[in-house]
């Protein structure tokens, strides 16, 4: 066992509020001080629009699947991830819808989250409107499924029947069931762009996808899609936080090891 009797004494000793405020202050200062800092690229941002173009060439629809991304109240910290994916994935959907509108590609979405489904309609409609082709928006293509099983079975069936030219699978799936859809898409030769939330879903994407981005990279997509320098500066500020955590492990480890702490 790595860590006996240690950990959440820290939760008692170090107030969560203090940690949050410290993180917030660092990121807030970064938003002013790190403007203009260059960021590395995230593969799925460009690949998603490439997927639209691939569908345009093949004359097929595009699948935009976000699984169970959205509002949830299961009361465990991992739920934070699905919630935080909402703004980024919706912003990506709007951009994809705009590109689809321009190129005349049909985009079919899938989600198991009711509020997210309604928000998807709002964003997709706006995207098509921005392309100058609002008439290309098809409300019945923004599909809600009552559960993960219905989503998987239907998307597998549609992957074989339509079939899709490309799929942007960005979000969370249940118990790595994304691989079931990947298998159907791969069988039909579709291009797969994946950006999954959970580590185990990421593993399935690593196995099957043509392009993929890991976990937190997907929360940052919204910042990459805007010209505003502030969100990018905040992303740069995250590096300070991560650098601090790395320093805590290395220096803290040495100090604990030397019994200084």
């Amino acid at each position, binding site marked *: 066992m*790595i860590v006996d009797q240690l950990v959440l004494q820290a939760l008692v000793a170090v107030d969560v*509020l203090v940690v949050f405020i410290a993180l917030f202050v660092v990121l807030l200062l970064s938003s002013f001080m790190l403007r203009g800092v260059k960021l590395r690229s995230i593969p799925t941002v460009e690949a998603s629009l490439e997927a639209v173009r691939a569908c345009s060439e093949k004359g097929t629809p595009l699948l935009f699947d976000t699984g169970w991304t959205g*509002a949830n109240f299961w009361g465990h910290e991992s739920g934070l991830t699905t919630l935080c994916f909402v703004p980024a994935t919706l912003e990506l959907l709007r951009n994809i819808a705009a590109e689809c509108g321009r190129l005349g590609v049909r985009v079919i979405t899938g989600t198991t989250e009711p*509020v997210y489904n309604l928000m998807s309609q709002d964003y997709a409609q706006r995207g098509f409107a921005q392309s100058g082709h609002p008439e290309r928006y098809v409300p019945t293509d923004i599909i*809600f499924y009552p559960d993960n099983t219905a989503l998987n079975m239907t998307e597998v069936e549609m992957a074989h029947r339509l079939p899709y030219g490309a799929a942007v699978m960005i979000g969370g799936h249940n118990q790595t069931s994304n691989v079931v859809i990947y298998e159907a898409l*791969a069988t039909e030769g579709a291009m797969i762009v994946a950006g999954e939330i959970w580590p185990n879903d990421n593993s399935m994407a690593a196995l099957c996808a043509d392009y993929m981005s890991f976990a937190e990279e997907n929360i940052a997509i919204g910042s990459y899609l805007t010209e505003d320098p502030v969100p990018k500066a905040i992303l740069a500020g995250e590096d300070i936080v991560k650098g601090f955590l790395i320093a805590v492990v290395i220096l803290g480890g040495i100090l604990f090891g030397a019994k200084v702490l």
Partner: protein
Amino acid sequence: MAKQTESTGSRIISELPTLVGIVGLFVIASLYWVQPGWDVALTIRDATTLSLIFPTAIVVLLLLRRHIYNLSRREESWPYDITTIGSCLFMILLYLIGGMEDPTLAALYSNVSVVGTMAVISAIAVGIFSAMMRIYRAKTPTMAFLIALSILALLTYSPLGEMIYPGIPQLGDFVQTYISGAADSAFWISTYIGAVALITRMILLKERLRPA
């Protein structure tokens, strides 16, 4: 200056829902350290949770609308559209007659939905093994390393490794516990940092929660 003030003012008004949402966020977050919770926070939390029944009902109706639309256009999927609409309405009818405890409603749910879920979740194995056999090739040294690790995991978590050499599952356990465990932490921790950054952007009104 006046113009800037005006635009800031109108911006704040247009972003009022986001601002209210952020206040709500911190009111709810306070429940973590205020024990027992205070009434306003509990009311907002409970009301939000309960309100979810409405969007859920709306999207189920939209789902039905999609199949009715297919039917009205006499698409080739009509027998399946009828199955979907019919089974959905039948379940609602069962509820209206016998409530959630209706035995037929429970029987259909457990033998169709729950078993269907098991089928989909178990089909993951087929998807993975098929993909492993078809596309898992040592195109790079990293890929070769990962294939070796996948084989190690197969040896560790089936009795095979122990049969060959007892050190194999020990090595597999070591990789799983100490390397995979650390990678898992890195995934989650970076995501939680991303969550705090997202909230910072929301507070600065730089993260849009409605379409631009």
